[in-house]
C-alpha cells in the first residue's frame, strides 16, 4: 500500500481523509468489468421479457429498448392457464415449490444431524464414513441417474420422487460437519452441565448458533433443486407433475417457430423465486462464522 506524504503540520483527521481517498482504482475497474459481464445476461433476460419477440433478438439494441410490453407474460398465462393438457403456471409453481420445500427442509434436518454426529460423536467407523461422504461429493449426479431411475421407477410421476434423491446430500453433510467442527465444544459441555440432553443441546444451543451453515445449505440446495432438469425429465411425463424447469423446456418444443420473448418471460418467472430466496437468506449466508466466537 502506498502512503501519501503530507506536510508535517497537517492534522490527523485530515491525514485519514486523504488516505481514504486513495483507492485502488485498477482493482475497482476490473471488478466493474466482471460485474457487467456477470450481470448483463440477467439484465438482458429481464428486459428481453418485456420486449416484442422481434426486438428481443435485435442485437445490442435489445438491451436499450424503446418500447416495453407485458405481452409475453400475457400470452404465457393464456397458454398455461389451468389447462390439463399443457399444465398450468400455478401447477408448475406448486410442484417446484413443493419439491424444493421437501429438499430444503428435509435436507436441513437430515444433513445437519449427520454432520453433527460426524463432528461430535465418537463411534466406530466414523472416519471411514466421513471419507465415503467426501468421495460422494465428487460423484456427479449424472453418473447415478440411471441406477436411481430403476430404483425409483415405481414412484414415477409423483412430486416425492423429484425430491427424494436430493434430500440427503453429501456436500451439505460435509458443510455442516466443518461448521460444527469449528463450534467450540465447551458450548455443548456447558449445556450438558446445565442439564440439557443431546436433543435439547442440539435444538437450543447448536441450532441457533449454526444459522450461517443452515442458510448456506438452504440457498445452495434450493438453487440446485429449483433449476434441476435431468431428473424431473426422467421421472415425469404428465403435465400435472411438471416442475417449472421442464415446463420451460416443453414450451420450446411446442413452438414451431421459437418465441424468444415468451421464453425470456418464462426465464424471469423461473429466476425470480431463486433471487427472492437468496435475498432472504443471504444475511446469514454472508455472516462469517467468526462473529459467533465466544472467546474473550
Amino acid at each position, binding site marked *: 500500500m502506498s502512503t501519501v506524504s503530507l506536510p508535517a503540520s497537517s492534522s490527523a483527521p485530515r491525514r485519514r481523509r486523504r488516505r481514504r481517498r486513495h483507492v485502488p482504482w485498477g482493482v475497482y475497474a476490473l471488478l466493474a468489468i466482471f460485474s457487467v459481464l456477470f450481470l448483463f445476461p440477467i439484465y438482458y433476460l429481464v428486459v428481453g421479457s418485456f420486449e416484442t419477440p422481434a426486438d428481443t433478438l435485435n442485437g445490442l439494441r435489445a438491451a436499450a429498448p424503446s418500447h416495453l410490453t407485458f405481452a409475453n407474460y400475457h400470452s404465457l398465462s393464456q397458454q398455461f392457464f389451468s389447462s390439463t393438457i399443457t399444465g398450468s403456471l400455478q401447477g408448475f409453481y406448486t410442484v417446484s415449490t413443493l419439491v424444493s420445500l421437501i429438499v430444503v427442509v428435509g435436507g436441513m434436518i437430515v444433513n445437519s444431524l449427520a454432520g453433527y454426529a460426524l463432528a461430535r460423536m465418537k463411534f466406530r467407523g466414523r472416519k471411514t464414513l466421513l471419507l465415503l461422504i467426501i468421495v460422494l461429493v465428487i460423484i456427479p449426479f449424472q453418473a447415478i441417474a440411471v441406477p436411481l431411475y430403476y430404483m425409483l421407477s415405481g414412484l414415477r410421476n409423483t412430486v416425492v420422487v423429484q425430491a427424494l434423491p436430493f434430500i440427503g446430500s453429501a456436500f451439505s453433510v460435509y458443510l455442516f460437519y466443518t461448521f460444527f467442527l469449528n463450534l467450540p465444544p465447551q*458450548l455443548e*459441555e*456447558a*449445556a*450438558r*452441565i446445565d442439564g440439557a440432553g443431546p436433543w435439547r443441546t442440539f435444538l437450543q444451543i447448536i441450532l441457533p*448458533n449454526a444459522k450461517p451453515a443452515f442458510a448456506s445449505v438452504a440457498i445452495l440446495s434450493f438453487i440446485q433443486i429449483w433449476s434441476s432438469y435431468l431428473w424431473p425429465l426422467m421421472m415425469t411425463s404428465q403435465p400435472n407433475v411438471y416442475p417449472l424447469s421442464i415446463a420451460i423446456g416443453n414450451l420450446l418444443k411446442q413452438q414451431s417457430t421459437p418465441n424468444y420473448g415468451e421464453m425470456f418471460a418464462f426465464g424471469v418467472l423461473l429466476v425470480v423465486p431463486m433471487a427472492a430466496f437468496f435475498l432472504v437468506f443471504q444475511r446469514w449466508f454472508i455472516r462469517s462464522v467468526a462473529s*459467533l466466537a*465466544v*472467546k474473550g
Partner: protein
Amino acid sequence: MSEIVLRDVSKIYDNGYHAIHNIDLEVKEGEFMVVVGPSGCGKSTLLRMVAGLETISDGEISIGGEVVNDLTPGERDLAMVFQNYALYPHMTVEKNIGYSLRLRKLPKEEIKRRVAEAAEILSLTEYLSQRPGRLSGGQRQRVAMGRAIVREPKAFLMDEPLSNLDAKLRVQMRSEILQIQRRVGVATLYVTHDQVEAMTMGDRVTVLRAGVLQQCDTAQALYDRPRNVFVASFVGSPSMNLLYAELGPDGTSLRVGSQNLEVPDTLFAQRPNLRAYLGRELVVGIRPEDLTMAGDGQTLVGRVGHIEALGSELIVHFGLDARNYVVEDKGGSAEEAEELLEETALTQHVRNVARVAPRSSVVTGDQVPFRVSMERAHFFDLASGNAIW
C-alpha cells in the same frame, strides 16, 4: 454435605495413554481447592472427570456423599466455569444465567428473582438484556460466574477461568471469585497452571505432574516443606535455586561446586534422615529470599548476570561454578517456557536467583558473596527427587 471426594481415580485413554494415576483427593465443604501443574499434567482432565464430561477408568468420585461415577453431568448438580466462559452467544445475559433453572422447570418468578440476585452480586444488572458478544472480557467472566452461582450447586468447578483476562483484571477477578465462593460457601475445585494464582487463592493447593499427585497442602506448607524437588521448583516465584552438592563425610560441610558451606549441627536435628547422605551427592535447594547480601556467615560467591529492579526488591541473577539441577517438565504456559528458554540461552550459566533489598550496591559482572541461611535450605535425594527430612 457438599464435599468432593476422589478415591483412587485413574484415567486411561483408548490409545493407552495414562492421563491420571490413582488420585486420592478430598475437597471439604466450603473449601477452595486449587489444582496446579504444568501444561498437559492432567489437571483439566481431572476436573472434567469430576464434571462427568470425561469418563473415569478406575476409582470412585463422590459429591456430597453420593457416588457420581454413573451420573450424567447434569445429574451431578455441579456448576462449571470454562476457560473461554462458554456463554451461549445467542442468549442474553439474563437467559444465559437462567438457562439451567429453566431446564429444571423452576417457576418463572423464582428464576427471575435468582437471576436478579446473582446479577446484583456480580454488578451485571444493567447488562441483563445484552448478549455476551457485546460484553468485555471481565463482564463475560462475571456472567460465567453468575451462571454458576445461580444454580446453588453442590460444587463449583473452574477450569482456568482467569487465563483469558489481562494481568490487572486477573488480579481483580481473583479476589472477586474468592469473595463469591466464600459467600456461597460451596466446595470448589479450581484448575490453573499459574502458581501465583494457586498460592493466593487456594485454601489448599494440589500439585499435579504427569497425572500423578505430588503434594496437597496449604500454600505455605507447600512452600516451606515441599515433598519433592518438583514441587520445590514449581511453587514459588522466582523458583528455588537447585544445585548439585556433596555432603562431607563428617557432616560438617557441604560442597557446592568449588565452594564449601559449613553445616550447622541443628540441621541434622531438623532433618535426621540427612545423616544417611554423609559423603554422598544430593540436591540442595535455596529459595531466592534465603540468599542475602547483608551481614556475614556462610557465603556462596557468584558472578552477577543481570538485575531486575522491581522497586520493592532486586532480583539478582547470578552464576556459580556449581552445576544446576534442572527439573524436567516444570512447565508453565508455552509462553513462559519460551521465555525461560530464551533467558537461559542468553545468560548461559546465570541460573541462580537472589532476592535482595532495593538499592543494594550490586553491579552486573561483580563477584558477590551471597549469604546463605543453611537452616532454611532444602535437601533432595538425587535419584528419587524426594525431600530429605
